[in-house]
C-alpha cells in the first residue's frame, strides 16, 4: 500500500501540475505573437534584400547593355527608314518598360501588372525580331488578380530570348500559360529552342541556371517557406519548358 509520504507527493504533483500547465499555456500565448513577429520581420528583411538584388539584377545585368543597344539600334534603323509610327511606339513601350522597373518595390504584385510589363518587353522584342517571333499567351481570368513575385515571368521570358532566340536562327515561338489548380498557381514559359545542349533525361536544377532564375527560386523559398513550391526547367519534344508552381495568393 502506498505510504503517506508517497500520497502527499502525489497530492503535491496534482496541485502543482495545473499551475505548470497554466504557466506553459500563458507563456506560449504571450510570446507566440512576439516570436512570430520576429520571424516575420526577419523574413521581410530577407525578402526586401532579395528584391533589392532583383532590382539591381534587373537594372544592371538582365537589361544588359547588349539588349539596350540592340533596341537603340532598332530605333535608329526605324528613324533612318523614316518609319515614324513604329519608332514612336518603340520609344513609348521602352519608357513604360523602364518606369515599371524603377517603381516596383512590393514583394508581390498582380499577375495582370506583370503581364502588362512583359507585354512592353515583348513589344520591344517584336520590333527586333519582327515576323520571326510568334507569341502565344493564355492567362486564366481568375489568375489575373492573383499575386506573384515581381519580374518572375519577365525574368523567365528574358532568359528564353537570351539563351534561346538570340543564339538560334529560324522562327522563335514563345508560349506563356498562367493557370490555377487545387489552390496553386502554375506558370509555364515554353520556347522553341534548347537552352542547353540536348539531353532528354536531364532535369535542370535552378542552381545551375543564371542569377535571375536563382533569384526567383530564392524569393519563392522566402515567400512560401512551409508550402509546396518549385521552379524547374525541362525539355519536352524539341521545346524548353520552364514551369513554376506556388500557392495561389490573392
Amino acid at each position, binding site marked *: 500500500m502506498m505510504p503517506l509520504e508517497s*500520497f502527499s507527493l502525489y497530492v503535491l504533483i496534482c496541485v502543482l*501540475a495545473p499551475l505548470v500547465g497554466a504557466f506553459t*499555456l500563458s507563456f506560449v500565448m504571450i510570446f507566440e505573437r512576439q516570436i512570430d513577429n520576429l520571424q516575420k520581420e526577419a523574413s521581410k528583411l530577407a525578402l526586401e534584400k532579395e528584391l533589392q538584388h532583383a532590382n539591381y539584377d534587373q537594372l544592371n545585368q538582365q537589361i544588359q547593355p547588349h539588349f539596350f543597344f540592340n533596341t537603340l539600334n532598332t530605333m535608329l534603323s526605324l528613324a533612318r527608314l523614316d518609319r515614324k509610327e513604329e519608332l514612336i511606339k518603340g520609344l513609348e513601350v521602352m519608357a513604360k518598360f523602364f518606369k515599371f522597373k524603377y517603381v516596383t518595390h512590393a514583394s508581390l504584385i498582380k499577375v495582370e501588372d506583370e503581364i502588362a510589363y512583359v507585354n512592353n518587353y515583348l513589344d520591344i522584342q517584336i520590333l527586333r525580331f519582327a515576323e520571326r517571333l510568334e507569341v502565344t499567351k493564355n492567362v486564366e481570368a481568375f489568375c489575373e488578380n492573383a499575386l506573384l513575385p515581381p519580374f518572375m515571368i519577365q525574368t523567365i521570358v528574358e532568359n528564353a530570348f537570351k539563351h534561346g532566340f538570340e543564339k538560334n536562327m529560324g522562327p522563335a515561338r514563345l508560349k506563356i500559360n498562367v493557370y490555377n489548380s487545387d489552390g496553386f498557381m502554375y506558370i509555364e514559359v515554353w520556347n522553341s529552342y534548347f537552352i542547353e545542349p540536348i539531353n532528354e533525361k536531364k532535369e535542370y536544377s535552378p542552381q545551375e541556371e543564371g542569377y535571375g532564375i536563382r533569384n526567383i527560386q530564392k524569393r519563392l523559398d522566402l515567400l512560401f517557406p512551409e508550402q509546396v513550391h518549385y521552379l524547374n526547367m525541362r525539355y519536352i519534344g524539341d521545346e524548353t519548358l520552364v514551369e513554376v508552381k506556388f500557392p495561389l495568393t490573392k
Partner: protein
Amino acid sequence: MARWITGNTILSSPESLVKYGLLGGIGYSLVGAFSIFMFGTFANKIRFRFPDVETIGDVFQERLRKDGYWLMTIIILFLGLDSLFMQAVGAAVLFDLLFNIPFTVSLFFFFFYCFIIAGLGGMKWIQKFEGISIFFIFAAIIFIPLYFFIQEGAFKVYDGIRLYHPYLLFAKNHEAYFFIATFMLVACGQVLTDRSTWQRLYMIEQKKVRITFWSTAFVWSTIPIALSAMLLIVIFEGSFGETYTLLFQLITKIDPIFLSVLFFLFCFGALSTTINAEIHATTIHFIKHIRLPLKSSMTDQQMRKESYIFSGLLLLFLLIVTHFAKFTLLDFLFFYGHLYAASIPVMLIIIFSKRKISRLLPYSIIAGWLISVTLFGGLTSLQTIWISFFLSGVFSVLSMLFARVEFSSRYSK
C-alpha cells in the same frame, strides 16, 4: 486544446481512477497526452501529403473509392456520436445535481445555447468561447485543490481513502498497466479519427502545427492529474454510488461560493466547448461528405440551411437519448474502444500508404470489431480491444494485397 479537455476527461477519469486506483488516474493523463503528441508528430507529414484538404472526409474523398468511401464516412459519423453522447450525459448529470428543476428543461436551454454558438455562429464563435472556457478550466483546477488541501491537509484525505477506498492505494496493480496500454491504443484511434482535430490541423499555420499539438499534449496532461485530486476530495469521506456523477458532487463539498461558481463554470465550459466543437465538425462532415455527394446541385445557402437543420436535429436527438441512458461509462468506452482500435491500421494505411487503396480496406474495421466482440466473448474487454486491433490490422494488409490484384486485373483488361 479546449476540444481535448472534453467531457470525456471529466466523465471517464473518475471511472479510471476508481477502477484502477491512483495509477489509473495518472495513466489516463499520460495516455491522452501521448495520443495528441503522436498526432502532432504525424501532423506535418499529413499536411505535406494532403496540402489541399480541409477535413478528414476530404482525405477519404482523395484516397477511397465508392463503397469504401461511404463506409468510412459513416463509421466516422458514428464515432462522432460517441463523444457527443458522453457530453450530453455529463451535462444532464451536472444540471440534475445543480438545479431543482427537471433536467430536461435545463438541458434544453444548454443545448439551445450550443445550437446558437456552434450551429448558427460557426467556427469563429466557437473559438471565441474556447478561450474563456480554458481560463475557467485552469482557474478551477488550480484553485479548488489548492484551497482544499491547504485547508484540510493531505493526512486527513489519506486516512479517509485508506478507510473507505484502500484499493486505490495499491500501486502493484497489473490490470492497471494493461488498462493504460489498452487505453493508449483506444486514445490513438480516437485522435486519428477525430473530425474536429483534423479540422484544427488545417486551421493552424503549418510551421506551428507540430509545436501546437505537442504543447497541447503537455498542457492537457496536467488536467486529468488535477481532476484526480479533485476526485479524492469527493470520495475520502465515504462510499459512493454511480461513478459518473462523482466529480459533479464536488459542488456539494465546496463551501466558498466563489469556488462553487468557478467549478460550475469549469464544468459548463468544458462540456459546452466539446459539444460545440463536436456539433460543428459532425455537421460539416455530414453536409460536406454525405449530403453533398448525394445532391451535388446544392447551393451554399441550401447547405447552410441544411446544416442548421442537421445540428438542431442532432441536439434534439441527444436530448431525447439522455433520458434513456442507463449504462456504465467505462463499458460505453470499451464498446467504442473496439471500433477506435480497429480503425487505427485502416487510418494509418489511408494516410501513409503510397499505393492505391482497396475498396475493401474500410471493411477491416467492421470485421475486426464484429469478430472480436462475438467470437471472443469469453475474454475481458481489454483483451478483445487488442484482438480487434490485430484482426483489423491483418484484414487491412490482406485487403491491400487484394488491391494489387484488383488494380492489375483492371489494367490487364
